[in-house]
């Protein structure tokens, strides 16, 4: 017997999964560059959210057309990959359609895979049309120039090719067609190949089989470089999302300490700070100042642009785009990660930062904190939390708020109101007519 095929297959498999795991480890290291934040509470609610939002896609159907098509592609993707198990066993042990001994059940399984593959083809074609022919606004927005724009199309082509290969593989499998069980779709493709010798048919079938498995491995490894990472990260991302009401911003603990000290009449203002008390940076100017959930958010973002399409600032022509906030954060995090890779595990300052080099103050100050983006995101990402952390840096570390905001804050400080009124006049309305 010739074991060459099986060996090549095993090597392919090890390379494919090996490279994938290396990259996953890199992502996890990068996410861990973020600050600690505790999301271990309420695990029941968290599991439920994950089941509803990531698995159940509950927020996708808010836009019904995209939502339903997406569910088809998603279900198709997950279920057809059950096939992968058979392919791996066949490939490693030189068997052919090992599960066909299941009889009718096998037919039902493959039959449903074929239907799904066909539906996925349809859905992906509609997606392609939406992006490239109808040109929905959120897909041609300038956030998506260059790679991100092509990335989306590449994935669609990938899906088309993979699904076609799967169907061709079934259509050219003479045994499978003869058994006439499960070839729901492929029986209509098979006639294309009539008149071809059995040998050639077998060759086509084998080629489709090999291309199919190689394609899947390439796809797996392409994820890391693509917005399609969301098919994996959507799960942890929805699990670890903030559970508080959307209006609630976190209270910075470091500030609480200082404010308590300031307000404590017994505290000695001249006391030397306890040893080892280094200045903590307030807010965020770079990715390492964000917390790990915010960084996970950045890797999870699918660049769908739903957030940007509902953002009041963006709709009125301001530079702010919540999607761009997420993409910038991810791009900068990748840059920092590469820096660490080339410098043997250490980050060497590169005179760049998320603030200014990626996200400008103009974008940050345009946000109304309305939470429309957070509400809209189908996978529980919060662009707003990053915006607020960066504003905190601008104001508390750089005193770089727009002038009118400085005036407002001075008023709050001196008069207890954002305008120049005297606190003693607060009840005057009572006697005014």
């Amino acid at each position, binding site marked *: 017997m010739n074991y060459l095929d099986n060996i090549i297959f095993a090597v392919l498999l090890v390379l494919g999964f090996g490279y994938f795991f290396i990259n996953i480890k890199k992502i996890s290291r990068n996410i861990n560059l973020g600050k600690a934040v505790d999301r271990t509470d309420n695990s029941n609610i968290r599991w439920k959210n994950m089941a509803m939002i990531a698995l159940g896609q509950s927020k996708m159907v808010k836009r019904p057309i995209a939502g339903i098509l997406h569910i088809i592609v998603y279900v198709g993707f997950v279920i057809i990959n059950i096939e992968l198990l058979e392919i791996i066993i066949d490939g490693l042990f030189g068997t052919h359609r090992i599960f066909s001994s299941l009889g009718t059940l096998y037919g039902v399984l493959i039959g449903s895979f074929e239907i799904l593959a066909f539906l996925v083809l349809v859905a992906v074609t509609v997606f392609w049309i939406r992006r490239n022919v109808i040109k929905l606004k959120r897909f041609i927005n300038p956030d998506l120039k260059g790679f991100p724009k092509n990335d989306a199309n590449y994935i669609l082509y990938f899906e088309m090719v993979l699904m076609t290969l799967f169907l061709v593989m079934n259509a050219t499998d003479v045994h499978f067609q003869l058994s006439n069980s499960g070839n729901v779709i492929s029986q209509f493709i098979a006639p294309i190949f009539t008149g071809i010798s059995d040998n050639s048919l077998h060759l086509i079938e084998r080629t489709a089989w090999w291309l199919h498995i190689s394609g899947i491995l390439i796809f797996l490894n392409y994820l890391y470089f693509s917005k399609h990472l969301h098919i994996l990260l959507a799960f942890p991302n929805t699990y670890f999302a903030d559970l508080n009401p959307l209006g609630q911003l976190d209270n910075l603990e470091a500030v609480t300490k200082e404010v308590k000290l300031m307000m404590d009449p017994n505290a000695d203002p001249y006391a030397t700070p306890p040893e080892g008390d280094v200045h903590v940076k*307030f807010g965020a100017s770079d990715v390492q100042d964000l917390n790990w959930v915010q960084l996970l958010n950045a890797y999870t973002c699918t660049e769908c642009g739903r957030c940007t399409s509902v953002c009041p600032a963006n*709709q009125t022509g301001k530079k702010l785009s919540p999607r761009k906030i997420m993409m910038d954060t991810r791009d900068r995090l990748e840059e920092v990660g590469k820096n660490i890779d080339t410098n043997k595990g250490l980050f060497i300052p590169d005179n760049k930062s998320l603030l200014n080099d990626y996200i400008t103050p103009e974008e940050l100050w345009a946000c109304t904190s309305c939470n429309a983006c957070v509400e809209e995101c189908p996978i529980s990402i919060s662009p707003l939390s990053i915006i607020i952390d*960066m504003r905190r840096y*601008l104001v508390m570390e750089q005193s770089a708020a727009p002038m009118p905001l400085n005036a407002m*804050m001075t008023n709050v400080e001196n008069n207890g109101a954002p305008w120049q009124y005297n606190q003693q006049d607060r009840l005057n309305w009572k006697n005014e007519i």
Partner: protein
Amino acid sequence: MSEVLIVPTMAEMLAQGKQPEVLFWVGCAGSFDDRAKKITKAFVRILNRANVPFAVLGTEESCTGDPAKRAGNEFLFQMQAMMNIEVLNAYEAKKIVTACPHCFNTLKNEYPELGGQYEVVHHTEFLKSLLDDGRLTIEGGQFKGKRITFHDPCYLGRANKVYEAPRDLIQKLDSELVEMKRSRANGLCCGAGGAQMFKDAEPGDKEVNVLRTEDALETTPEIIATGCPFCNTMMTDGIKNKEKEGDVKVMDIAELIANAQDL
């Protein structure tokens, strides 16, 4: 409106050894802004009519710190918060009602961790509860059959999921509630939040409040109702921008109810 408003302060209450049922947090806009003061007074008239024992902090009230926090000044926010919490706790405040969704959100969600734990309700929720308990009756009066659209304040709606109380109240006026194409969780911001109220907008091709006013005008309303003094300002400005002052009024839910009873 010759009737005098009865507005006791917490200090007066304490001097008489009394504790009000609810503390009315007036807020900066409600205290100082000419338009918002009318909302404050309308709400007080309803409270007086329903004989609700309430009190205000008066000159002891100070900004919750919301605009400072959203602008990024966590220091100023926490200083304001701790000062206010000290005052509120000294009076042993239990329940707070406010007509400002920004105060509402901050007091309800951001004060507890800093030591201020109260039951906080928005005035539309409070009015709804008065109604449910039979302490307040609402009749349509002048608003019977009027087309009213409700603009969801972000800090009431999306931020805290209060969508129904204001709508229930509008419907009690026997008026026709017409929804904008984006409402409730999909509502569009008026443009004031996140400290935008206190600064100029960044360069763009439109003002947010004008866009939102267009949403509202599409429903051809006679009245745009809101539950936030800042939304009120923004929508009023939007209506002026569209030169519709003659046709469309912008009113707070409290004003609708007070006016319907001729209070």
